[in-house]
């Protein structure tokens, strides 16, 4: 339940801070999308990429330089 409370707070405060209005249906959808995506976002953020040398202005049509 704590996770749910934190999620509700994250969504509600985030939307309020940006001035985005959301009705009950919006909130239900946002909650469902958050539940699907957020764990993966957290996993992404936890990935150690410190050794990845940036590729400035990558040309996606070609192999990396």
């Amino acid at each position, binding site marked *: 339940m704590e996770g749910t409370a934190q999620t509700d707070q*994250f*969504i509600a405060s*985030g*939307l309020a801070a*940006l*001035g*985005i*209005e*959301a009705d009950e*249906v*919006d*909130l*239900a*959808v*946002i909650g*469902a*999308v*958050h539940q*699907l*995506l957020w764990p*993966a*976002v957290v*996993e*992404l*953020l936890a*990935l150690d*990429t410190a050794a*990845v*040398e*940036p*590729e400035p202005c*990558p040309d*996606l*049509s*070609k*192999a*990396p330089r």
Partner: protein
Amino acid sequence: MSGDPLDLGLRAQAAALAAGEVDPGELLDAALARIEQRNPALNAVVETFPERSREMLAAAPSGPLHGVPLVIKDEWPLPWRAQRFGAAELTVPTAPEESGPYRALRDAGATIVGVGNMHELGAGSTGATSFYGPAHNPWDPERCPGGSSSGPAASVAGGLVTGAVGADGLGSVRFPAAYCGLTGLKPTFGRAAMEGHHMAPTTSLIVSGPLCADAADCRLLGSVLCGEKLPAGDAAGLRIGVVRDAVSEDVTPDVREACEQAIEALRGETSGEVREIELPDLEPAAVAAILIINSESMGGTTPQQLNELHPELSPVARGTLKYRMLLPAAATVQATRVRTMMRRRLAALFEGVDVIAWPTVPAPAPPLEAPVVALPSGPTVADQANVRGGALANMTGIPAISVPVGLSGGLPVALQLQGAWGADALLLDAAEALERANGRRWVDARPPLAQVAPTEA
């Protein structure tokens, strides 16, 4: 010639037109009649414009697609119609104009006969949601046709046209190709016409791509979209990389078996070899691609716009658009680092293999009513499952192709091949080799709806 010209493949239809065996005006009328007859069951085509099509045909230059009726996804503007992106409203302005794919088709002599349905805002792999109502899978109208290029795929699989132009930002050509039993090419980033797409100036993922019955047809239409010939080769000695990890193995048994058989058949046909390779972090890479396309698509969107969304935008689209504003910038920055990491890993892998093969989608088309697939890991939302295997090509820029390799419960199963940057033609070569290996069994398979007696045409 014998048989209905509408039931020929793309290149056969083009050849029959070029040889004068088929009258282009009659073919256009027949295609419009076919759409009128079959489309109510498919909802693949959301708009036709017979007079515009006839004008296009009247002015058509001689070209590789002279007189061939085609469908284009509701993602590009036409001179007489702005794209709607499968939605009641876009948060960016659009207007009728000559888009790149339109020009490419026009200059090749093709006739655009209709606009193809698509998943609302391009934001889904199933096609289950659209402003126009969902398109239906010709193999089973209760099933998803795949997305976001749902209408183009259903149009071709349903025999309305022989080829269609889709767009692929996270797999949106390959997923519907897989669900509908077609061949779909996602070209190398930047290679195919994209002008006029509302995200063309900002996207680093989306490309236009062909959906056709087989690889040779995709080569023809893909060459037109790329503005250059994708030459045919033989894929001899093909080195096929396969990944065996939790993500690539989390597929239904039927999909696994069909793809394993296809890989072995491809190896045999090309006298090639199969090499097991390691490509970790596919799941974070998929999320990274979602974050990148999110940041590219939401640029310029204001909270006020989100407070004034069109009332007919679906609840899912409304909520998702608002949620996207909450995603942290740090995650998007991390996503670009993961992109670099995956690009370097792929560059190293392509030193040792020519293609990387895995199932295009982990399960056949789910029901439109509930787009969830049953995987070994448990029930999974189809979008979440599909993006794992589709997004890598977009986030790194490499080309990829989906090829039908079987049926499971009467629904198509597909193998995806991914190649190095610029290896689009090699992927087509490999797909053709696979067709040869299985006697064209799967590319020539037609859904019941497209096998209706000729009295209808």
